[in-house]
């Protein structure tokens, strides 16, 4: 039998190119050919009316080809960019224009677009544009937005874009009747994806074919394609979008179209020369998206065992200046907040509010880190109030393994019911306790205390809805050489899709792994697709490639049975050869591919076997009525609902008694993403998520001043973790509760590592310090000041 590849740590096929400098990222496309370069004038003000834009003199700069402001845009290009995910509660959704019309609402908003011989000249030209602004009062931060003394958009009352409420049971009545109650106020600040490669778009118009080719660093090639066709007035069939290698996404590249994704192709068409836009780091900070900022108020009622009888959560989600991605992030917080628990009643209300800051779209975790922070802080507060072990309170609230599927009685981000498919939270809790040494920790704490050292232990649990619809598809083509070409439409940003999808196809079809070649995110190869977000690629495209490969296999067996004069059921495919089990009779899959396509003309030695005097029953049509030529399989996977992965993280931190420096001594992860396709890749995803989580919990924040200026818009001042900031080792254990919703029993893994970070670090620091931690991220300086304020409170 062919060795099964599913579940094994296969080395990535992507790496050979990427370690030798042969990757092709957006800025690498068309290098060596004539390409013009774009630069964008961005607003220096957070809130202003544009009185006049003077571009005279810009075109006089040698090497400048084009300068546009909103006045130069017509028809659909002049309209606001699409609101991608409308929601009935989003009464006041607003999106930016490709170039600002009359008003700017955050520092960094695009105002004018220049194309020149190179980026240096384009930036020179941008510097010559003169804009007259009438400054308006900026609205910065959740407090100012709620106060609504000033409005971000004149026609949005109270700065509230949306208010959404969901309730399961009567939470307020349950809290009123509960033996114990608590109130908490919990805050999470802004951070951002910050992929090492920013955004980038290259476009080439072919006037002979009337066809637009666009390479863009995106998480959704089909999404961008649809927008370009609609806005530029092209037929969909005239637009090809190719996703080159993408240098990280983490969410920010799922939002689309970015202004440049429309302006670049439009310019390429008008100028007749390819045009490229490559975002620089400062632009990424001030013109791409952020996430995370939310303030929460919790009321909870519970019994003597810590069982939650009623949970009432209100929160305010700062969505920045615009809402292109709808309410997805706060909806996810409001639903995924529940984690592995089953409160007897739950009510959640959020307001999604405007500020004059960079807009918010999903960043890895997408609202879940905040939800997990709220729920886990609540669990810890209940444990503290009752004097119970924190794991006991959690265990008292877990959904039990025999309760699946478990309906939480809410509507999830995909508009479907929030119903968990599978999981085993009690078993997971035992694993994480063992992995981190939960029961041994008090002794360790004492030992450390004797050395004058202060340590704390934190735990956080989460559930992650992964693999949301609507669908993904795949096409599998066995070529006459025996090579297998696979395409799926969603895109890749480093997750190793070429490897894992090839593993699945090699297993399903019975071919050697190295004969399978996978293409992702190329609309020429698979025009029907959604995108890569919500930890959905493995579940959605993994299932789709599996189904498509099975279809190709079915056809191969049918043709081979005919050629070998055998019964299909007696055949097997091993190492790319179809054979009759237990006999010498066999045929190469490549030859089966030849036979699948009845020919009139031979083009090589192998194809002679399929010509009209060599093959076929003269009494029947060469291609049967219900068949088609070629050894191909195509299928789509569209699940009823999301599948729910889960995990628990624990961390041991040391806090310096003098400097309040926070050091990680141990980090442990137990993770359940159903069956693992490739453990090497899953663990890599966890490592990366944990590091991003460390950044979000201890270092990263967007520092806006009252004028709406982002003060730390560089890697010098926005503190992304280097190796020196992440744990020296991450202990990982897996639990595999397969999903019943897809053929491979898989769940998503991409975002998991980052979800519990704020919660788990807050818990550990609180445990070390002995006072509540209610706002994240936390810096040594903030911890120092918290210590001072608690010392003052304690001393009369």
């Amino acid at each position, binding site marked *: 039998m062919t060795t099964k590849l599913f579940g094994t740590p296969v080395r990535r096929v992507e790496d050979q190119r990427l370690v030798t*400098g042969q990757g092709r990222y957006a800025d690498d496309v068309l290098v060596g050919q004539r390409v013009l370069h774009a630069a964008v004038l961005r607003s220096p003000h957070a809130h202003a009316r544009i009185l006049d834009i003077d571009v005279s003199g810009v075109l006089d700069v040698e090497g400048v080809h084009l300068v546009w402001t909103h006045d130069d845009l017509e028809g659909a290009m002049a309209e606001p960019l699409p609101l991608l995910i409308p929601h009935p509660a989003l009464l006041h959704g607003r999106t930016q224009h490709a170039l600002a019309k009359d008003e700017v609402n955050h520092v960094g908003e695009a105002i004018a677009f220049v194309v020149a011989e190179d980026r240096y000249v384009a930036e020179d030209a941008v510097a010559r544009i003169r804009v007259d602004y009438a400054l308006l009062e900026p609205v910065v931060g959740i407090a100012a937005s709620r106060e609504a003394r000033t409005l971000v958009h004149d026609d949005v009352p109270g700065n509230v874009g949306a208010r959404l409420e969901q309730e399961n049971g009567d939470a307020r009545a349950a809290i009123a009747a509960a033996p114990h109650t608590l109130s908490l106020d919990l805050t999470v600040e802004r951070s951002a994806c910050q992929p090492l490669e920013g955004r980038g778009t290259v476009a080439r118009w072919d006037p002979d074919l009337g066809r637009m080719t666009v390479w863009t660093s995106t998480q959704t090639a089909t999404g961008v394609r649809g927008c370009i066709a609609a806005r530029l007035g092209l037929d969909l069939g005239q637009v090809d979008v190719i996703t080159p290698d993408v240098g990280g996404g983490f969410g920010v590249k799922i939002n689309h179209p970015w202004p440049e994704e429309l302006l670049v192709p439009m310019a390429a068409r008008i100028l007749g020369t390819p045009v490229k836009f490559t975002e620089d780091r400062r632009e990424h900070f001030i013109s791409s998206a952020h996430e995370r900022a939310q303030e929460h108020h919790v009321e909870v009622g519970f019994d003597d065992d810590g069982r939650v009888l009623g949970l009432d959560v209100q929160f305010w989600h700062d969505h920045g200046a615009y809402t292109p991605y709808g309410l997805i992030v706060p909806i996810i917080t409001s639903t995924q907040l529940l984690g592995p628990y089953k409160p007897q009643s739950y009510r959640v209300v959020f307001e999604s509010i405007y500020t004059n800051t960079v807009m918010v779209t999903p960043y890895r975790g997408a609202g879940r880190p905040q939800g997990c922070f709220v729920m886990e802080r609540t669990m810890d507060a209940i444990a503290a109030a009752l004097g119970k072990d924190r794991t006991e309170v959690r265990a008292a609230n877990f959904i039990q393994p025999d309760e699946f599927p478990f309906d939480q009685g809410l509507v999830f981000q995909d508009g479907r019911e929030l119903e968990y498919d599978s999981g085993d939270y009690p078993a997971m809790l035992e694993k994480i306790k063992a992995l981190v040494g939960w029961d041994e920790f008090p002794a360790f704490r004492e030992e450390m205390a004797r050395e004058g050292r202060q340590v704390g232990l934190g735990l956080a649990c989460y559930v992650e809805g992964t693999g949301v619809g609507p669908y993904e598809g795949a096409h599998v083509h066995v070529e006459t050489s025996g090579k297998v070409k696979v395409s799926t439409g969603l895109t890749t940003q480093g997750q190793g899709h070429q490897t894992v999808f090839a593993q699945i196809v090699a297993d399903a079809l019975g071919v050697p792994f190295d004969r399978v070649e996978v293409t992702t995110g190329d609309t020429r190869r698979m025009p029907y697709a959604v995108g890569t977000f919500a930890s959905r690629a493995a579940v959605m495209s993994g299932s789709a490639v599996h189904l498509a490969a099975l279809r190709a296999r079915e056809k191969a067996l049918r043709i081979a049975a005919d050629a070998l004069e055998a019964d299909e059921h007696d055949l097997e495919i091993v190492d790319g050869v179809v054979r009759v089990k237990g006999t010498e009779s066999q045929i190469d899959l490549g030859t089966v591919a030849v036979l699948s396509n009845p020919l009139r003309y031979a083009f090589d030695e192998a194809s002679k076997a399929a010509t009209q005097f060599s093959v076929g029953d003269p009494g029947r049509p060469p291609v049967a009525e219900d068949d088609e030529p070629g050894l191909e399989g195509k299928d789509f996977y569209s699940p009823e609902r999301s599948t729910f992965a889960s995990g628990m993280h624990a961390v041991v931190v040391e806090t310096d008694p003098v400097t309040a420096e926070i050091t990680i001594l141990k980090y442990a992860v137990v993770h359940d993403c159903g069956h693992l396709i490739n453990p090497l890749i899953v663990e890599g995803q966890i490592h990366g998520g944990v590091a991003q989580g460390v950044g979000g919990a201890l270092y990263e924040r967007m520092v806006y001043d009252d004028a709406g200026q982002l003060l730390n818009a560089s890697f010098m001042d926005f503190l992304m973790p280097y190796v020196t900031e992440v744990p020296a080792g991450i202990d990982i254990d897996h639990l595999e509760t397969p999903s019943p919703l897809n053929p491979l029993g898989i769940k998503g893994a991409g975002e998991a590592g980052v979800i519990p970070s704020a919660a788990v670090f807050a818990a550990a620091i609180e445990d070390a310090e002995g006072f509540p931690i209610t706002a994240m991220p936390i810096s040594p300086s903030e911890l120092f000041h918290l210590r001072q304020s608690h010392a003052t409170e304690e001393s009369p």
Partner: protein
Amino acid sequence: MTGPPEETHDVVLHVNGAAHAVTVPGRRLLSDALRHDCGLTGTHVGCEHGVCGACTVLVDGRPVRSCLVLAVSAQDAEITTVEGLAASDGSLSPVQQAFSDCHGLQCGFCTPGFLTTITAGLRDNPDPTEDEAREMVAGNLCRCTGYQNIVKAVMEAARS
């Protein structure tokens, strides 16, 4: 309004053993010259202010951030980029092989800067402790891997 055309300079860049004659303005960064004038796009630009390390190349054997160097000032130097790390027969260098074996990369964008940095680092310290391996890569940012497997790859490359 328009000034005189920008003055340019003829420079020969010696990259990976080959000479590239380029004509560049004085302000052109070495990173841009390598990528757009020499066509060596393996060197990536992540921040353009010398912090992320993605654009690191070896200049006379020392790791240098090519976004902080003007192309005209690299005239007489021997430059090695990621494209120059593999052997002439195409076989991977020990550091490249270790990155592949240890899953030391995901999106691959920061990888060339790590590979050049570690190549020089292991030349100076062929047998690092794990702490020294971490120190070796402590000036480069990676947003995907959490560095765990990058440190493993340094140790693995040192062993081979």
